[in-house]
């Protein structure tokens, strides 16, 4: 089996890339492990997936679907922005809060084979993300295990020299995984980490708060909790 990461980075080390520049000029990329894809793309394997799907920055949430059986879908079935806030990111760009969206965004899905994911998928996907030249990356997970794989991806992307932040509904998993930046909306749950379906205002606020962790004082390894409701 391959090494856990290309650099063999210890879990005790937290990769950290400072955010430089301004949020209102930054191109932001979304990456999720919650099994989101375009309806026209091949379905993810529900129990073990090491591949990924590319989601164009022009896609709307209505064009997306979700393949995952490990978290409650009641919210995300109604509104994909609960785990993949592509419409909310576009709204932030329209409001001038961020510079824009990258051309491509990325999604993968459930696997319990964390070592293979870290060694293969995370490294490969981090390189694809880097090719988009984003100034910032926002990550989300679906179920508990997907928060571990999101953390592996986040660490790999950060090691490419790209600042990242994750929005987590599983703060224990995220903290154990030692990521550079993380926001946990108190009371959020797998399947609606950004807030309930249809609450665009709240989802936008959570997303912007996560992005603003990039410009605040460094707190690597810490999960920042915020109360919204």
């Amino acid at each position, binding site marked *: 089996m391959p090494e856990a990461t290309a650099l*063999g980075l210890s*879990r*005790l080390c937290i990769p950290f890339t400072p955010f430089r520049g301004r949020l209102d000029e930054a191109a932001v990329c979304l990456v999720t492990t919650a099994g989101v894809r375009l309806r026209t793309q091949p379905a993810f394997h529900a129990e*073990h997936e090491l591949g990924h799907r590319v989601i164009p920055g022009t896609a709307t949430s209505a064009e997306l679907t979700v393949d995952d059986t490990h978290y409650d879908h009641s919210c995300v079935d109604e509104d994909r922005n609960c785990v993949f806030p592509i419409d909310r990111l576009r709204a932030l760009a329209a409001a001038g809060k961020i510079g824009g969206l990258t051309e491509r965004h990325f999604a993968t899905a459930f696997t*319990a084979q*964390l070592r293979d994911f870290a060694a293969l998928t995370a490294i490969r996907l981090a390189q694809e993300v880097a090719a988009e030249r984003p100034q910032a990356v926002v990550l989300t997970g679906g179920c508990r295990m997907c928060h*571990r794989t999101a953390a592996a991806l986040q660490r790999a992307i950060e090691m490419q020299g790209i600042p990242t932040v994750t929005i987590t509904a599983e703060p224990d998993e995220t903290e*154990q995984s030692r990521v550079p930046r993380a926001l946990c909306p108190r009371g959020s749950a797998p399947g609606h980490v950004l807030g309930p379906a249809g609450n665009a205002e709240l989802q936008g606020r959570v997303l912007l708060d996560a992005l603003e962790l990039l410009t605040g004082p460094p707190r690597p390894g810490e999960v920042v909790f915020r109360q919204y409701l």
Partner: protein
Amino acid sequence: MLKLPIWKLQPGNEAPGFDLPATGGGAGKGEGPGRVRREDYRGKKSVVLAFYPAAFTPTCSAQLPSYEEDRTEFERRGAQLLGISTDYVASNEAWAKSLGGFSFPLLSDHWPHGHVTAQYGVLRGDGRAERAVFVIDREGKIAYVHVSEIGKQPPLDEILAALDRVR
């Protein structure tokens, strides 16, 4: 024979012995079942004895794969990971297989039910183990104990720090 009340097991105490049926050395990889004894590691390796409540449950299904993901951390510290629960060997093997397999064995403290788990002071009233980690040094002494809330994982950084102290 353990002289202290079981709930008083603490660093410095002799770790209670065990000789239990287990999956193969790599759980879930189709190796035949075997036995694992504490004495197998005395003078050779420190041991991370990770008690978990039950196979096929959510927190355990994140905890054990996370140890597999980070197995290099344990290997470089010369430590042997051992998972242990009151499940059957066959249950543990099937569960590990469903998670892609592990590079360490899972021990079955199924019969006499929870005997070893009780000696470590972490047998719950419902017959399952607490979520608890004991680091045992090469001389067989307990170097670290952590009993977690049932839905929370033991802190990996503390486990690694304990291994660094006994290396």
